[in-house]
């Protein structure tokens, strides 16, 4: 912390030496020369112009003293702008990064002294500047709609701001996907998938902006709740954007770096802030359901984290070991946050456990309105279903780790993560296929209980059956934990700082 502050102070003192991120300069230079960017911008302006002309001509025959064509025109312009910028800018940035980061052949800028964080920031800011270019080109048309009545200027600016944030978030998402270490065919498939899936960002964005316009954002701006909702939405979007940023930085960092630390630190931070926010909401608004929102979001996030931590290798690089604190509680905390599958498992377990216990506590005892909000069935369902699901998830993860260690030790660590997913998939699909054939080609049996299938737990409405799942998953987890206990213990014991740096033996210089 002191080092960070000292660096910040030094940076502020030397403000005359500040320079723009080189990636931003390079990317913007290339973007303004890129025919696709210029073509898309021109296309957008032409479409906006044609639509404006169409609106004006079609409405000029309509003799009505209360004609308010500004509103529909604005909606159309928002749709065009959202479509163009959400489809194009993230795709442009994503494709560029994916091309630069071809498997085993990255662009040479990735092996300069630019830090991974600076590269990702540069890419993001370039996308943000491009979005600004698109938005500013659209701005005169938007402002023009105000003169035609039907929409006020604060609404115009607020909706544009809202859309701009969505474009930036989509941009971060595209950067993250482009940084994934996939081969070219997979990247092309991912780009195509992302391109078509971006419709699910555009449609809600357009609907939300239409709703905001009809609701009259301008008149709501004086209300406190409007700003609470706005700030909350921006904070949640910012937190998600931050997560993709941290993940992208980790993905392009060297394998010897402590890549897990910033990611686990960030997730812990949003977990903590989210939890505090949810608790505050529970007490202030007397709405215990807020804790479930936090629980479910963190449940998804931690499940994804579990797959990632299982994919971590066991061997710590020298530079990571050099940073391990000597002893005491600092070393224990470092074990949770530094690289390594064992520490990662412990970290996920701690966060899962606290999240579940806190939610259960609020649902049953802590909240004064818990009894009226949640029925006994709801609580009982929560108390059985989630532990069963958690037990399954950890059982898959630990079994995958064991299989990888025992049978595929020479394969990369990420194979363990793939195995965990494969186990879950097999447990979900396998019994279904067998039962399908045993049951004379009928799918009816799938609605029954399938022990080992985590997805089946969610389909059971009978808590008694879910309890069987809990027992089965618990037993599986116990066996898997016993099989991994020695490994975990060894990892925890080996998590020690590097006492002296190992100096490799000198090789006789050739030809000298």
């Amino acid at each position, binding site marked *: 912390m002191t080092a960070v502050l000292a660096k910040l102070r030094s940076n502020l003192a030397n403000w005359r030496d500040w320079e723009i991120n080189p990636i931003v300069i390079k990317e913007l*230079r290339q973007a303004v020369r890129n025919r696709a960017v210029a073509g898309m911008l021109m296309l957008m302006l032409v479409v906006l112009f044609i639509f404006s002309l169409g609106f004006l001509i079609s409405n000029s025959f309509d003799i009505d003293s209360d004609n308010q064509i500004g509103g529909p025109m604005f909606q159309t312009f928002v749709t065009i702008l959202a479509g163009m910028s959400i489809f194009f800018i993230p795709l442009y940035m994503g494709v560029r990064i994916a091309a630069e980061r071809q498997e085993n052949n*990255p662009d*040479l*800028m990735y*092996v300069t002294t630019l830090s991974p964080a600076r590269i990702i920031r540069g890419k993001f800011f370039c996308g943000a500047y491009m979005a600004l270019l698109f938005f500013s080109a659209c701005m005169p048309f938007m402002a023009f709609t105000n003169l035609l009545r039907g929409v006020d200027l604060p609404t115009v600016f607020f909706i544009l701001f809202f859309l701009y944030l969505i474009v930036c978030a989509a941009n971060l998402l595209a950067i993250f996907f482009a940084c994934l270490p996939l081969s070219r065919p997979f990247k092309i498939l991912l780009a195509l998938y992302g391109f078509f899936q971006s419709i699910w960002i555009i449609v809600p964005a357009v609907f939300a902006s239409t709703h905001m316009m009809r609701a009259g954002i301008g008149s709501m701006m004086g209300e406190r709740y409007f700003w609470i909702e706005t700030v909350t939405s921006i904070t949640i979007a910012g937190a998600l954007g931050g997560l993709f940023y941290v993940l992208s930085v980790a993905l392009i960092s060297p394998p010897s770096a402590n890549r897990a630390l910033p990611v686990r630190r960030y997730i812990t931070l949003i977990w903590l802030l989210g939890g505090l926010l949810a608790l505050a909401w529970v007490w202030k608004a007397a709405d215990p359901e807020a804790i479930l929102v936090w629980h479910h979001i963190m449940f998804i996030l931690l499940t994804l984290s579990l797959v990632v931590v299982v994919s971590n290798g066991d061997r710590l*690089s020298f530079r990571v070991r050099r940073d391990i604190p000597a002893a005491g509680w600092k070393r224990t905390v470092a074990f949770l946050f530094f690289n390594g599958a064992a520490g990662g498992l412990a970290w996920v377990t701690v966060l899962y456990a606290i999240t579940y216990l806190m939610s259960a506590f609020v649902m049953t005892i802590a909240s004064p309105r818990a009894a009226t909000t949640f029925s006994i069935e709801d609580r009982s369902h929560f108390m059985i279903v989630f532990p069963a699901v958690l037990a399954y998830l950890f059982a898959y993860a630990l079994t995958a780790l064991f299989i990888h260690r025992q049978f595929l030790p020479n394969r990369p660590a990420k194979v363990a993560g793939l195995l965990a997913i494969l186990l879950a998939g097999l447990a979900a699909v396998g019994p279904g296929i067998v039962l399908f054939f045993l049951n004379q080609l009928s799918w009816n049996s799938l609605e029954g209980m399938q022990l080992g299938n985590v997805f089946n737990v969610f389909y059971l409405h009978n808590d008694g059956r879910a309890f069987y799942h809990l027992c089965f998953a618990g037993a599986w987890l116990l066996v898997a934990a016993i099989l991994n206990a020695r490994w975990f213990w060894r990892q925890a014991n080996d998590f020690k700082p590097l006492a002296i740096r190992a100096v490799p033996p*000198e*090789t006789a*210089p050739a030809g000298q």
Partner: protein
Amino acid sequence: MKVQVKNLRKEFGRTVAVDDISFSFDSGHVFGFVGPNGAGKTTTMRIISTIEEPTSGDVLVDGVSVCEEPELARRLVGYVPDTLPAHGDVTVHEYLDFYGRAYGLRGQKRTRAVEAIEEFTNVAGIREKHLRALSKGMKQRVSLGRALVYDPHILVLDEPAAGLDPRARVELRELLALLAEQKKAILISSHILTELTEICNGVVIIERGKILETGTIDDVLKKSVPRRTIAVRLADVSAGPHLLKEILQMPHVENARTVAGETHFEFGGNDDAAAEILNLLIARKFKVVEFRQTRANLEDIFMTVTKGGVQ
């Protein structure tokens, strides 16, 4: 400044691209990295340049491990890949300026460094041209300029002369000689071995991921090509077949053959024995116009030690 490659191994699936190789080179030395296609040269160079991660082993650049501290090692190594710069839509100056910025050069220092490199690599006249408009030779110069702009102590050049015309090759050779004078440690791979002979102090010969020979050119020459080749040219070319018969019966002589009107033979004796051969030829009335020792070069070493195996 020393580069130490230690027990380096790189696997791509089941293929072992680099198999436990170790060698080192120093400042002021130009080290040739020679081997057939698929020998593992590019992989090794990419590991030294921190682009690839080794499966095992390490490379220490002035004591800095490329596996453990790639960020620090990157400041010390300038890499010229075998592919040309891909950023076709930027100008030469913008390209070099970007890499100057990327390596932390600021303000006037960067401006001076970029201008100096443009002069040094002779691209100042084309600094406003887009990269896509450049010839291969010019792109190669720009690539070298990029690797030099932050003044690294070590240069790793992968096939820098490939596809260059004779003039560009000579100019590249001169540039490398200048860089060696500036006490840079240079590792260069090339298939044009005769050129490497002229600029290299040392050589590493690699095949199927394993080192076959390493050392100074002279040492490797002595070790790999112990017999020297002597060429004899007669005034009367028609006497060649007769000379061939005669010479094969002389002491220390092996593998005599006719090459472009001359008789070449491998000779295992010392200088006195060579002089005795010349005396014998003159005594047997051969009109000897030329009697010279042909210097073995990297090509000879390469052909002697490699088998042409690829992975």
